[in-house]
């Protein structure tokens, strides 16, 4: 069995699904962390900004003249360029500014936080007045710092994902393989069986997830076993059933060989021919039944006129009946259209009529009726023959079951065939007493 011929790999699917889920989750976590970090950074820096403004204000209040002008800073840190401050007089003159600050106000003269855009970049500004409302201090910080910081945090979070994802993939691949080991074991177990071994799969080693599948397989195995058993028994029965006609054939042939006079020989040879006819009939019936059982007989879906079929069958068997001095009659009460297979339906009716004639002694009669009742087509074959005892009526449908004391050597399969064909057509078969409470009436109801 080529494993790759299957539609998809469970392992591949699990790998893709799990990795996608992991990547999605991780990315979402990184985003959330980025925004959370941004928020914290904002708070921290805002507080810092306010504190810087306070410190500056304290210095300015003590002595503004000492610090007036532009503060020449030394480069201490790369972020210094992104920090700026201004001190304004109440009449709008710039008293003091950092080198990084512009000559225009960083923001409107107000109190508190504000955002402004200076030379194309965004800044966070904190403004405040002194107590006398004479001097305005504005401290600003470029947003770039905050973004960079938050970005770095998010990056640090995403980086392990890039390295981790392939590693995770390998781990998942190995884990799934190990996880699916029991499945593999089952497939090995099934694959290594002999074709005749239809014992159910052992539940003990089966994981819960696979149990429904194993259950279905076991169910199938059981049905297969039943079918095989029926088949085996049928073959055995058939072989044994053929032994009796063969024994009769051989015995009669030997009687003919030893016969002292022509009359005895002719009689024995006649019996030889009868034996061959019977074996032939049995083989024919066996073939019919096995074809039906195997479902090989193509079940046609034609509209079959049962009245016509009955007329054909009665016509076919009439010579036999006449020779036996059995009166045969067809009563057509309706056309009786049945959906089904014409050949099988004919076989069904022929078996019934043949049986009726066979088991009806000279002087008796056989009546075939086709009629409709409540939309159902009913075909009935009744006779004045020996009938079947009530307690035997169920068993006569069994294969090779023969009614005793008939002197007739039937195949024992006729009614089995009738029943199977009826089942295929969803019809019911009922056995009752026949004409005048004598003999047998077989009713087939197609509904």
């Amino acid at each position, binding site marked *: 069995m080529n494993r790759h011929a299957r539609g998809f790999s469970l392992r591949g699917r699990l790998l893709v699904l799990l990795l996608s889920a992991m990547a999605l989750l991780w990315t979402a976590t990184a985003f959330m962390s980025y925004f959370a970090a941004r928020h914290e950074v904002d708070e921290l820096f805002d507080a810092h900004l306010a504190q810087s403004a306070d410190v500056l204000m304290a210095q300015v209040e003590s002595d503004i003249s000492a610090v007036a002008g532009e503060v020449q800073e030394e480069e201490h840190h790369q972020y210094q360029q992104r920090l700026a401050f201004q001190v304004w007089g109440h009449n709008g003159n710039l008293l003091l500014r950092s080198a990084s600050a512009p000559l225009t106000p960083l923001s409107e003269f107000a109190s508190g936080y504000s955002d402004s855009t200076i030379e194309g970049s965004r800044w966070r500004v904190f403004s405040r007045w002194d107590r006398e409302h004479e001097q305005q201090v504005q401290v600003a910080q470029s947003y770039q710092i905050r973004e960079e910081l938050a970005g770095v945090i998010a990056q640090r979070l995403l980086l392990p994902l890039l390295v981790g994802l392939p590693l995770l993939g390998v781990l998942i691949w190995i884990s799934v393989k190990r996880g699916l080991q029991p499945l593999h074991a089952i497939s090995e177990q099934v694959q290594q069986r002999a074709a005749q071994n239809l014992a159910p799969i052992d539940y003990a080693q089966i994981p819960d997830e696979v149990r429904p599948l194993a259950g279905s397989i076991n169910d199938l195995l059981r049905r297969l076993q039943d079918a095989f058993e029926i088949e085996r028994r049928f073959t055995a029965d058939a072989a*044994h*059933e053929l*032994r*009796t*006609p*063969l*024994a*009769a*054939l*051989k*015995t*009669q042939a*030997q*009687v003919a060989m*030893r*016969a*002292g006079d022509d009359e*005895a020989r002719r*009689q*024995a040879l006649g*019996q030889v021919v*009868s*034996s061959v006819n*019977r074996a032939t009939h049995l083989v024919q019936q066996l073939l019919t039944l096995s074809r039906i059982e195997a479902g090989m007989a193509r079940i046609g879906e034609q509209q079959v006129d049962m009245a016509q079929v009955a007329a054909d069958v009665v016509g076919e068997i009439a010579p036999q009946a006449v020779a036996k001095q059995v009166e045969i009659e067809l009563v057509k009460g309706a056309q009786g259209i049945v959906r089904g297979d014409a050949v099988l339906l004919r076989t069904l009716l022929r078996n019934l009529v043949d049986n009726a004639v066979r088991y009806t002694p000279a002087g008796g009669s056989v009546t075939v009726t086709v009629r409709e009742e409540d939309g159902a087509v009913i075909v009935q074959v009744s006779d004045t023959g020996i009938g079947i005892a009530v307690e035997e009526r169920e068993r006569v449908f069994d294969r090779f079951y*023969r009614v*005793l*004391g008939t*002197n*007739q*050597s039937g195949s024992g399969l006729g009614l089995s065939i009738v029943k199977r064909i009826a089942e295929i057509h969803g019809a019911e078969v009922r056995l009752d007493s026949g004409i005048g409470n004598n003999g047998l009436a077989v009713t087939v109801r197609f509904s």
Partner: protein
Amino acid sequence: MRVLLVEDDPLLGDGLRAGLAQEGYTVDWVKDGRAAQLAMETESYKIIVLDLGLPRVSGLDLLTQLRREGNEIPVLILTARDTVADRVKGLDAGADDYLIKPFDLGELSARIRALTRRRTGRAAPVLHHGDVALDPAAHLVTLKGTPVELSPREFAVLQELLENAGTVLSRARLEQSLYGWNEEVESNAVEVHVHHLRKKLGANLITTIRGVGYMVEKDKSS
């Protein structure tokens, strides 16, 4: 020799009856176990040829019941089932021998002879009495080694008497072993057969016990 044939199949039964009659047996043919039981109550048989696959009372049941009643009549079973288990079942139920269908008529006849011979306590197939020898298999009777021509019924009477040497056999008993159910018994038939046998084999072979029947004395030489 009277044989009860229990066979439900009409063609096989007919063949067996004809074939066994050719071999000189008197055959009563019944078609089911119940009829076989009835037949055994009214007639006495040397052997039963029994098909195991019978309707009503199965062959096996019939056999088991027969043995339970202490009836030791030889039983040869005919069966379509050929597995060892089936054969063992038949033999264990009390069958003396079995044949699997289809069988040879000659073999059936030989096995019937072997079984009846054993039952009369003889292992040797040929019956001897003085100068007279009877070979059931070859259907041959010799007097001092010279073959003697006998009709099938004469042969049967002689065989019956020789097998029961030392016992007086009634006329009715001899008739019973000669004629089946459907055969008309000719009056004086047994007397006629005995008369012919005496003529062909010597007057001293068969003794008449007036009012009872006939017997062959136990052979002192054998």
